């Protein structure tokens, strides 16, 4: 049932609580896109959804998470998106290296087929109208599991092994976790809970007595505390 496996894939994207990232630098009157190409990259993901690319957020996020750490930090947001898109397109045989190098289409290259969703995960993305039993209820004490799977997972490192309280059951969603190639593991529909973690539970003395961090957790990520 669970998509969580033991391995090591803790990449730079999972950065909640890290030090040394520098100052936050808001830009007054920031444009939606700073350059024309940024808008094209943003839109490319959207229009590729009917081709089974980009619409699967787990796969798309995993493609970004595979960007080497130094590049991940150096790249702008849309450079990362572009890198991820190219990665997805190449992995799916939609474009070849030669085509990317030349900017021209290789007439011998295979044409992709339209498909809305990966066959192993037909439920897709979003709240599901499925009546499944909930393992946890509001008020339950839970612990976030340890997980370093080889693929994409939505369980922040800073919560792993920490105890919190379920404050909301958000309903049933498909698991978005992927394998090490970025393929969604399967639907595994389950409840997604909002869990309240006390600041001190997560950060010890650096935390605040009064404050809390709220994190959404798929049921598989939790165990009773």
């Amino acid at each position, binding site marked *: 049932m669970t998509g969580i496996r033991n391995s090591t894939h803790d990449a730079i994207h999972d950065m909640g609580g890290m030090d040394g990232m520098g100052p936050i630098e808001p830009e007054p009157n920031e444009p939606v896109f700073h350059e024309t190409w940024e808008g094209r990259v943003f839109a490319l993901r959207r229009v590729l959804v009917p081709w089974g690319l980009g619409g699967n957020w787990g796969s798309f996020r995993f493609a970004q998470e595979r960007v080497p750490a130094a590049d991940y930090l150096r790249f702008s947001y849309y450079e990362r998106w572009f890198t991820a898109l190219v990665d997805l397109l190449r992995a799916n045989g939609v474009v070849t290296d030669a085509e990317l190098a030349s900017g021209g289409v290789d007439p011998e290259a295979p044409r992709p087929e339209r498909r809305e969703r990966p066959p192993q995960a037909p439920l897709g993305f979003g709240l599901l109208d499925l009546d499944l039993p909930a393992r946890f209820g509001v008020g339950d004490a839970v612990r976030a599991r340890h997980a370093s799977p080889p693929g994409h997972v939505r369980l*922040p490192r800073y919560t792993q092994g920490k105890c919190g309280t379920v404050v909301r059951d958000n309903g049933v969603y498909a698991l978005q976790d992927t394998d090490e190639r970025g393929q969604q593991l399967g639907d595994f529909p389950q409840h997604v809970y909002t869990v309240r973690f006390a600041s001190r539970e997560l950060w010890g003395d650096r*935390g605040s007595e009064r404050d809390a961090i709220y994190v959404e957790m798929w049921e598989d990520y939790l165990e009773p505390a």
Partner: protein
Amino acid sequence: MAGSEPEGVGRRKFLKEAAAGAAGMAGAAGAAGAAESAPARHDHDHDHQVVPDDIALRVRALESILVEKEMIDPADLDAVVDAYENRIGPRNGAQIVARAWTDPEYRARLLADGTAAIGEFGFLGAQGEHMVVVENTAEIHNLVVCTLCSCYPWPTLGLPPVWYKSAPYRARAVIEPRAVLREFGVDLPDDVEVRVWDSTAEIRYLVLPERPAGTEGLTEEQLAELVTRDSMIGVARVAAPRESAQ
């Protein structure tokens, strides 16, 4: 509804005109690539140095390839860019906030079921399918982040600013939210509880900021003008009209 992206950009007709436009773009990208370092078509062994370093050219080359393969229509890309540059932005969220400030029944609905109440305005869709609204009060201050990527409620706030997507904000918001808030000009007393919402799943958060004092006489439209993007992320307060005019 699962997997849908209901913004009307998924036109799936690949017309002759689109192909003609594509050919023009492909030519332009090919010419640009050739000017950089390599012929548009070649069959010798090569490494990736022939890919133009300029990302604008690389993006244009990719778009032209996908157009030529009849997978995408440039007009669909234009429509997506236009929607997010001109229609889908924080003015949407500001309308929600102003309504909640002026209509107690709407406020109650918004806090009880954010998705349904925001749906009354039609501001749902991609990255805003399941919305939760959290209210800032004199006792509680809410702040939204996505530590794993950059999840953000697109239909109500538009696309996130660079700082929201940046490593410093994503890293720090969960461990030292009060320091982050001070840098944004919000200095909270110790007796205010800070709640940080890390958007790790498919729920997206909108902060309902506190209505500033001295705005009793303003209309809903005037109130919406006061509401900033940052106040709906939770890193700013809404300034009273006199302050915001400064």
